[in-house]
């Protein structure tokens, strides 16, 4: 189980591959991964950059609690959540959730659960820098 915050860009596929090397081979048949990547548009506007504020301490605790909930609800071999913080540019990954389990239903459902819970409750806030020079706090997450 791994929860991490990243002030610098990371490669989600390397992160997942590296983590998977520590998951007992042969035990898991299913891996579901979600990666959220910064787009260059949001709500009809061109977005140049983004800053992700978070609540140090609470964020990690909350992500660990989400993982614990998922492990209570489904039989999982392992989980990973990685999230960027700080200054982010379009095309850079923001978040990865990954789940390893014996069967695909668990993997898909738990991976989606992690993302939905993270989106709705984990203490992160996005401020967008628009192409026209202005900045704005994102007020509401897109439904998923």
């Amino acid at each position, binding site marked *: 189980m791994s929860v991490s915050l990243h002030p610098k860009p990371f490669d989600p596929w390397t992160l997942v591959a590296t983590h998977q090397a520590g998951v007992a081979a042969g035990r898991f048949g299913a891996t579901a991964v979600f990666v*959220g990547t910064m787009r260059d548009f949001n709500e009809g506007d061109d977005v140049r950059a983004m800053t992700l*504020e978070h609540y140090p301490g*609470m964020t990690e605790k909350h992500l660990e609690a989400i993982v614990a909930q998922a492990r209570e609800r489904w039989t999982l071999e392992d989980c990973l959540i990685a*999230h960027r913080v700080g200054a982010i540019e379009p095309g850079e990954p923001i978040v990865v959730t990954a789940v390893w389990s014996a069967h695909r239903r668990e993997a898909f459902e738990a991976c989606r659960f992690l993302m939905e819970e993270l989106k709705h*409750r984990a*203490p992160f*806030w996005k401020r967008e820098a628009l192409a026209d020079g202005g900045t704005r706090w994102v007020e*509401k997450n897109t439904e998923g």
Partner: protein
Amino acid sequence: MSITVRYFASLREQLGRGEDRLDAGDADTAAAVWARAVPERDMPERVLIAVNQEYAEPDHPVRDGDEVAFFPPVTGG
């Protein structure tokens, strides 16, 4: 000891500060802490509250040494 009050994101910007420190009061709740820390403004309707880094309701009791945070709806992921 004292109570640490923290503000995040747009709320932090609007208040012009990220943190206050209060002496513990009698019969404090999260809402009472807001009223003492931010007397210039009613507690926003959609504000989220955490006491000691766990989500809490406005009537959650607050004791000496606690950390109380107020922040807008989250938008991570």
